[in-house]
């Protein structure tokens, strides 16, 4: 398991999702990706994208203007 970080600040929807999708493509099951965004829509969109693609959202921190979402790759696979 390895930890990765993605800076998606100042990007507007759906770019934070696209960047997350592209980053996850290069990761392995169990890896963790922390995505930092500023678009308030990301707080819904990245978790939705994660759920429909089988990734687990471990944590969402909405701190003032920055949203940090921690994803476990393929964490929803049985």
């Amino acid at each position, binding site marked *: 398991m390895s930890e990765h970080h993605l800076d998606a600040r*100042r990007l507007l929807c*759906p770019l934070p*999702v*696209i960047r997350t999708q592209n980053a996850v493509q290069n990761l392995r099951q169990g890896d963790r990706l922390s995505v930092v965004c500023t678009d308030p*829509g990301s707080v819904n969109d990245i978790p*939705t994208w994660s759920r*429909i693609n089988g990734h687990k959202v471990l944590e969402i921190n909405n701190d003032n203007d920055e949203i940090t979402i921690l994803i476990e790759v393929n964490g929803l696979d049985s």
Partner: protein
Amino acid sequence: MSSSITPSTIPLKSIVVAQRKAVSLISGGLDSMLATKVIIDQGIHVEGINFFTGFCVEGHTHAIRKKDQNKSKRNNALWVAEQLGIKLHIVDVIEPYKEVVINPKHGYGANLNPCLDCKGFMVGKAYEWMQQHGFDFIITGEVMGQRPMSQRRDTFPVIERESGAGDLLLRPLCAKKLPPTLPEREAWVDRDKLHDFHGRSRKPQMALAEQFGITEYAQPAGGCCFLTDASYANKLSDLWENRGSREYELDDIMLLKVGRHLRPRQHFKIIISREEGETKFLEGYRKAFTHLYPTSHGGPLALIDGTAQDDDLQLAAQLLARYSQGRNANQVSINVCFMNGDTTSLHVKPLAKEDIPKTWYL
């Protein structure tokens, strides 16, 4: 003696029929949602695809504006995919899409919307994706006669031909009005369970949504692209005309969604934020533009697009002062920051409302 196996002796368990796979163009609206559901219900494995062109209307204005921060925001394509229980692949097509916007073979609609070229492009991209991922056919939510440019009996074959998809493109909502496609002829899907919707009425879609128990969906009218918006198209035309080129970058087209845009003189434009959220957004562009902000009063941030001389900056400062909290003051101090880091301070009288010609507003 060799044994032979006739079809009747093959145990049923050993007959494995590969599940067919379709990729569905998901816009986030009702039609693509229904078309996808119709095919899922026939036992086809469906995954969605959605293209980001840079012109998509996905609540960017709401995402930027402070006053809209509490409104619920979601990407409708993702939401639809989750409702349908399918995967969604969002594809960045900003670069290849430029050619569609700049040189549409079939021209524009009412504004700068190249709808027919756009549909051919997107189906073509879906066809590429289909081939790369081992899928069998493509579905869209198109309805014959629904849109004046891209959804007509005579333009459907254009999309099939120019996209390269040919008869691998199935339109479940109006398939019965069209010749059978390969998925129908090969009985991958049952044509009898497809539909014959046509025309501009939304009633058949509403009825089908009710039948499926779909009660929530994005409003179907209004389009999903800024290029259909007259005000946006006007700003884009102005950008192209004054640059002498139709080339654009993502930042150019994003900035057209934000702030007041005024062109007082042909060689420069001023973009003035309208509220706190827009100010914050424009702050991200300070290094790329000469920018101005009031120091004696509260107020917005302005970016200068073009080459502004001293008297132009004076005029820009007066315009900005007009939109500051000092609009009724005799004098407002404005800081001007140049891209090389130099700054200067101007002290100006705000322009009166009647001194700003309507023709300056884009």
